[in-house]
């Protein structure tokens, strides 16, 4: 995390740190696709995880060695590092419903 060059702490809640969602977005370069993915992700988080999430953006062109760790093939990919288990959604995240299912966001948000 410390190594990431692009780091945006969008919001930090004052509750237990374990409840904070850690999301990592893998992109290659600032393409329209990556920008769109980031925008979509941010919107979703704002809607469902207000103040309880942290997004880290990893540019694989700058840090190719990080691709192996999370088994990244497709770009863009968003990985839910916390809470475990790890979940992965690939694509520009334009299909909100699928992202919610993929990150298990709706259920977690409701059961809170």
């Amino acid at each position, binding site marked *: 995390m410390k190594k990431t060059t692009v780091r945006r702490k969008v919001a930090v809640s004052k509750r237990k740190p374990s409840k904070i969602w850690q999301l990592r977005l*893998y992109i*290659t370069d600032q393409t329209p*696709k990556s920008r*769109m*993915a980031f925008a*979509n992700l941010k919107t979703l988080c704002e809607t469902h995880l207000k103040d309880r999430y942290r997004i880290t953006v990893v540019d*694989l*062109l700058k840090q*190719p*060695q990080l*691709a*192996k760790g999370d*088994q*990244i*093939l*497709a*770009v*863009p*990919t968003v990985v839910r590092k916390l809470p475990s*288990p*790890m*979940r*992965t*959604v*690939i*694509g*520009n*995240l*334009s*299909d*909100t419903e*699928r*992202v919610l*299912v*993929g*990150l298990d966001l709706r259920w977690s948000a409701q059961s809170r």
Partner: protein
Amino acid sequence: MKTNGAKSSSTATRLPKCPSGIQGLDEITGGGLPRGRPTLVCGGAGCGKTLLAAEFLVRGAAQFDEPGVLMAFEETEKELTANVASLGFDLDGLVRRKKIVIDYVHIERSEVQESGEYDLEGLFVRLGHAIDSIGAKRVVLDTIEVLFASLPNEAILRSELRRLFRWLKDKGVTAVITAERGRESLTRHGLEEYVSDCVILLDHRVNDQIATRHLRVVKYRGALHGTNEFPFLIGADGISVLPITSLSLNHKVSGERIATGIPRLDAMLGGKGFFRGSSILLTGTPGTGKTIISANFAQAAARRGERVLFFSFEESPDQITRNMHSIGLRLEPLVKSGLLRFHSARPSLYGLEMHLATMFKEITEFKPHVVIIDPITSLMDSGTDSEGKGMVTRLIDFLKANQVTSLFTSLTQGGHALQQSETAMSSLMDAWVLLQDFEGNGERNRVLYVLKARGMAHSNQIREFLISDRGIDVVDAYIGASGVLTGSARAAQFSLEKAAVLASQQEAAQLKREVERKRGALERQIGDLRSDYEAEAMELRRIAEQVGTRTFVLGTERAASGILRQADLKVAANTQSKPKPGGST
């Protein structure tokens, strides 16, 4: 595809090749895989795709100083390392020395959700990073088709794969991509569409309960290549493909002759034995002594200091040495000294091709001067007739090319009729020695004769051969009015003849004595007659003398009386001169 086509036409002059280092494969492909291009290796489960790819990489790193990247989609690094370690590849060591990078790519479909557009740039980044980190020249993608199961959007995947192969070409790496064999196409997901430079098909099929692996170069753009199916095996040191259908008849021949270990058999072959490097067929019904003659041949060669490789498909090495010991052939010391090596295997152990491959390997390793195959027939039975003949042809071809003398024994199924396969096989052989049983007088005896021996004067005689505890002895069979006599009949005939000779000898001696006696008698008679004659002649002389004397005396007396009577002197003078001759006699 379009870019592929454009590329290959621009480099139409001569395709640079990248040696795979895999035994035999480079021969088939005329030097290796197309350098800087992707090659597709496809085949069903368990036919050795991953192994071939891994060997390509390992040999490249170890032998040709070409580092490589292995992107594994199915097996983890640990699994891969363990798998290829059994073939003597030290993948771990190569990884540590930064000759090889293994990247295990894994996507669990259940953990991945798809939402909107994406591409596989991540894969490109990973591969590019791996290539750049060690300056890789070779890349293996094993098996990239797994992605079709992991990623739901096939359209994206296809376009990305097409981009990937083009990208690999642009990178200038020689890539091997493995793919699962499809039902109707070469690969299940039609990867052959994207990889058009070289396609190698592997196959593992069961024929008559015996499985054999085959390799075929389906396509090799811009290069000549062997198009046949070549059997290959996965041995203790990797894959070896056998490009063994080269049927050129231009091997060198030797004028040197080698003894068979049986002096009388050598004598039948112009006194010197077989030609070095020739192929010899030894046929016979069961129990005619084929193995024994083979063992004799082996022993003779090993004693000359030559290496002998004995392929036995019916007996174990121990069994052969024990059995040969009973006839005075001691093979153990030769085995111990390393000159004689046995290779025993059941014919049904694996297919004909595999047998051939194993034999080739053994021969290449051991470099024998003499190879014995005992018997070739049981080996040929594990395939069809044409397969069997093809196999023998290739084997002989290979042996002759290496100037190895080969002895094949062949079992005939009783009787005198030669089998069809045998007749077919015989045309490949330079010499053919036939062993046969002769039955008669309540016993069975062995005979042998030389049916053919190319390029040398050979005996047309049938010889009997005896097996005793001192080895093999070849003797003349008796050929008389009643045909060929062997065994005790021959012995009986011999003693009969001996008796007859003795009898006639005795008779002659008798006759001689008789004649001598007659001559003695005759001479005695002659002597008698002569003495008779001499006696008579003497008598005659005596009488004549008496007559003479008497006449003289008479004359003298008459003259005296004449003087006394004073008769005329003339008469007296005449009568006086007459008795002189009588007196002189």
